[in-house]
């Protein structure tokens, strides 16, 4: 661009930095508190998958007894209590939290999730209360009544553990929108891994512990694969991906995977130690992954080149 020489405005104007509008953000970042919402997403996953496990284990009650079921029940209570509290805390007008249940809007994962949380809260509470009260008060019928809620709790639990992926995917935030399927597979698998290792942590029976660890191992492998495919999508979209495999992912997936593999060949004593270490790594990694996903999404919204490029790509894909 040739400028008029010698004039008072003889300097290059920042009129067209890279073809965007002064490099200003093109979409707005979500106003979520990353810590609170990330913790909720983690708890929703842990509780949802725990309810799934208590349903599965109640089918093998004769073999493994009741104690694992009761522990899973306790974990399933985290989302409807602490989790729901965190969600309300994140609202900017929290006294109107109940408006979430004013309508059901199937196009909105936020609405789907609100109803899932309510449904899950009811079913999981009924199932665990039936189990606990039936045992203490020696009321068989109460136990049976509670058992009726096992399957609904497990089904809504599966939803609760995965819908959070679509919650982020169904936005215009570039990093969340770039890999909608991988994101919820990653969230769902991480939820299963966290619940399985948490149950293994307190499990005295070595056979059940080994089985739970194997499930966790499989879930971690799925999570790893989903994370890799998400990273490919980010790179293709021009989103700054944090290296080929950031240390957080390694600590949260590869490390526990290694520990579980090593524990599989150990005798029950050291197996338990390794399994417990794996549990700590999985829980920490699972929480960190959620918070980091939110943070990274928010910062991806700041770069107009990314969101505009994503739109261009959709455009040419549609034209084909």
């Amino acid at each position: 661009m040739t400028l008029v020489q010698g004039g008072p405005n003889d300097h290059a104007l920042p009129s067209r930095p890279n073809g965007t509008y002064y490099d200003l953000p093109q979409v707005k970042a979500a106003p979520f508190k990353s810590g609170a919402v990330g913790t909720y997403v983690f708890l929703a996953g842990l509780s949802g998958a725990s309810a799934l496990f208590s349903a599965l284990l109640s089918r093998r009650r004769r073999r493994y007894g009741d104690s694992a079921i009761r522990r899973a029940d306790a974990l399933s209570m985290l989302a409807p209590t602490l989790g729901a509290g965190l969600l309300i805390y994140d609202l900017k007008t929290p006294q109107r939290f109940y408006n979430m249940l004013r309508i059901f809007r199937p196009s909105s994962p936020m609405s789907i999730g609100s109803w899932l949380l309510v449904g899950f809260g009811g079913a999981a509470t009924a199932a665990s209360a039936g189990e606990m009260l039936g045992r203490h008060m020696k009321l068989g019928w109460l136990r049976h009544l509670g058992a009726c809620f096992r399957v609904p709790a497990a089904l809504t639990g599966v939803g609760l553990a995965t819908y959070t992926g679509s919650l982020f995917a169904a936005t215009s935030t570039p990093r969340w929108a770039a890999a909608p399927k991988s994101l919820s597979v990653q969230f769902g698998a991480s939820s299963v891994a966290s619940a399985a290792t948490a149950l293994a942590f307190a499990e005295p029976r070595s056979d059940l512990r080994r089985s739970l660890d194997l499930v966790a191992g499989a879930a971690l492998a799925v999570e790893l694969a989903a994370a890799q495919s998400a990273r490919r999508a980010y790179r293709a979209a021009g989103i700054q991906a944090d290296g080929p495999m950031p240390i957080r992912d390694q600590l949260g997936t590869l490390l526990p995977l290694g520990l579980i593999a090593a524990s599989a060949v150990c005798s029950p004593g050291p197996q338990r130690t390794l399994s417990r270490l794996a549990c700590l790594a999985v829980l920490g990694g699972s929480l960190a992954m959620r918070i980091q996903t939110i943070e990274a999404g928010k910062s991806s919204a700041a770069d107009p080149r990314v969101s505009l490029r994503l739109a261009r790509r959709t455009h040419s894909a549609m034209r084909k």
Partner: protein
Amino acid sequence: MEVHQRARNYPESGFDAPIPDEAELTAQTRVRPGRSYGFFTDTTLCIGCKACEVACKEWNNLPADDLGLTGNSYDNTGALSAHTWRHVSFIEDNVRAEISRPFQSGWLMMSDVCKHCQTAPCVEACPTGALFHTEFRTVVVQQDICNGCGYCVPACPFGVVELSALDGKAHKCTLCYDRLKGGLEPACSKACPTDSIQFGEMEALEERALRRVRDLEARGIDDAYLYGVPGSPGAAGGIERLNAFFLLTAAPERFNLPVAPSRPSDRTMPSLAAGITAVAGLALAALFLFGRSDRT
């Protein structure tokens, strides 16, 4: 432009009640529920006076955002926000270069606004039903219902709606819902001195806009196109049309507009299905592992 016959009934200013169907006198349209209304913003007519921004702030009683200079040409508003529902962007295209054509033809100015999408991603995201399509097919946040969850903010593909820190609710252009109900045209289009912002019924507006493009072409301006009418840039990926659409003469990106906004809700089901499939697979594996005969 001829003066509407009814205008003669109101020779004085200063009325004790609004003129019935005032929009007919100022925008040649009657506002009736059940029909679709919107804005046609013709950027070739914009002179960057910001009367729309002022009129909007005045009518809607919106607080000021940052007071200061951004250094980005005359744009000191920066962006649409919870408190700024009209935003005039300024682009200086070779204004001071030798190749500049005479008569300030290097200036690009555009009054940006909520697009009032049909169908609207913010409405599809809102879990409380606070965001809704009105009887005028505009998109409005009901202030007595919004609980400030903020999910509409990342849903909007145009970066329009925002939460206000002042009251913890989502805010954006209402296309002057209150004025429409009273038969008045929106404040910004009424204030626009060049008719760069035109208010009207969608069908008539789109027709008028197409005529304008053809007219400009005839005058030798061949890069004019519409953004946001069906089949054009801006109306893509399940967003059929924008009830606030634009006539542009530069790439949409120059104005921070996406060529092909996508509809976020299209990602809800595929994403949910993939996650549930993965968890169901792992559950089956767990069921199998729990049922294995003892090894140890």
